[in-house]
């Protein structure tokens, strides 16, 4: 039985889809069988980020409506073994799906895959309940700004209420320079507020946008800092104990600033 993990955030545009695509691909590159599920019915874009949009024939809605078998709706990613996508219907909306239906699909996928990664839409309404219905675990994505963090906190409360555990954090679009200059919250501040385990820190990386536009997840490019961050995150998801090197990568200046503020 594989792990069903919902990738969610509360606030929109913080990097859920980017994280799902890259983590899914990274896990497959590590030899795992993975299915990434787009739960953003009506506003799907996991297929675009994965570069698979032209090959979609069926969606999860067709499976629910018994138009096709679940296995037939999975789109195989040809670049790596063991990776498939289950697309969301673009012409329906979130209320056309019931949480139990999504749960049944995820559980069925869990029987044949090591990981089922569900890309949740933003918000706390039906889309979120659908996406998290079948989840054993959650990954909360946030950026280091107060409004994203407050929404992440809200989502964590809802996930805890639903008994989903563990809940881990990806801190996305992190910029050590901005932290160093005092204009961005550092990871300690974020973790202090959210009080969940950190899965990894993904830096602000212009490569994300070009990779999104080309439909080639960042993790295929070894050199990019974002790619390396997602590869480390994938290893942590598989249970490997890998330190978070981003912590040491903080600028010299910021360490001094921290030293002063801590000892005040």
């Amino acid at each position, binding site marked *: 039985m594989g792990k069903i993990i919902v990738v969610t955030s509360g606030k929109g545009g913080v990097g859920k889809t980017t994280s799902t695509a890259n983590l899914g691909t990274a896990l497959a590159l590590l030899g795992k069988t993975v299915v990434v599920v787009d739960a953003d019915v009506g506003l799907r874009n996991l297929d675009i980020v994965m570069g698979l949009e032209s090959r979609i024939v069926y969606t999860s809605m067709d499976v629910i409506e018994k138009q096709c078998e679940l296995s037939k709706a999975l789109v195989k990613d040809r670049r790596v073994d063991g990776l498939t996508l289950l697309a969301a219907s673009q012409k329906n909306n979130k209320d056309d799906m019931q949480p139990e239906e999504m749960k049944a699909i995820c559980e069925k996928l869990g029987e044949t895959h090591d990981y089922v990664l569900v890309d949740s839409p933003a918000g*706390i309404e039906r889309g979120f309940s659908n996406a998290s219905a079948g989840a054993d675990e959650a990954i909360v994505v946030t950026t280091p700004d*107060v409004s994203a*963090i*407050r*929404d992440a*906190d*809200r989502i*964590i*409360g*809802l996930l*805890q209420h639903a008994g989903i555990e563990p809940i881990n954090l990806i801190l996305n679009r992190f910029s050590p320079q901005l932290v160093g200059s005092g204009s961005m919250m550092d990871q300690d501040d974020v973790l*202090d*507020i959210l*009080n969940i385990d950190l899965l990894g820190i993904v830096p602000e990386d212009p490569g994300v946008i070009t990779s999104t536009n080309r439909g080639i997840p960042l993790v295929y490019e070894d050199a990019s800092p974002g790619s390396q961050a997602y590869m480390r995150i994938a290893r942590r998801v598989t249970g490997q104990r890998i330190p978070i090197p981003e912590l040491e990568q903080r600028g010299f200046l910021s360490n001094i600033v921290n030293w002063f503020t801590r000892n*005040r």
Partner: protein
Amino acid sequence: MANSIVALRAYRDGLHLIIRPHLSIAEVEEAIQQEMSRMNQTLVGASVQIDLKCPLLEEEEMTYLKSKLQETYNLTVRSIETFDEQAPSPIAAAPTTHEIAQTANTQNGRDSEPSRIIPYTIRSGQAEGFPQGSLIIYGDVNSGAEVRAGGDIVVLGALRGNAHAGLNGRLSAVIIAMDLVPVQLQIGNFINRRAINQKPRGYPEIARLGVEDVIIVEKFVKF
């Protein structure tokens, strides 16, 4: 902010409704209504002492006022005291922060009041309340979260959200947090007008109502 005829104040022995010189009972009634709407009707069930600063009210007017307070605002009048016009007014003697602090742990029912412990962090969108007494939180109250208590609120963590102490109008209620960085504080019916800290100070702080009904924040040492 307070109207000139009627004022509601919390003292060591409980709530006082102060009635100052006026022209007619109708005027008093209207002033009470104003004062109560300022209090948002959160005083339901409380008992008040009426401090008459003028001997102008007739016996039947007093009876009328008592039943009016009971019916309309669910306030019980526990006693009536008439003050000589020359005597120092109870308002001038309104409790300073110091007085509240000294009497805090002995009076105002703190020792007889129940309290509720919340052994976890309260996150955005969540709310916890305890109108019957004080709240103690073994965790944080995050931005977007809300805690409300009839008595005090003690956060053994960071208070980053909204806190409302003294729900039933007990103005001696206090809010204490290890890190006091709230979005908004409210004591009785008074909201902080100036922003509280942006960043944690590294020591616990206490917020309470000072003179002029302004919420003041100080380093918390002990009661």
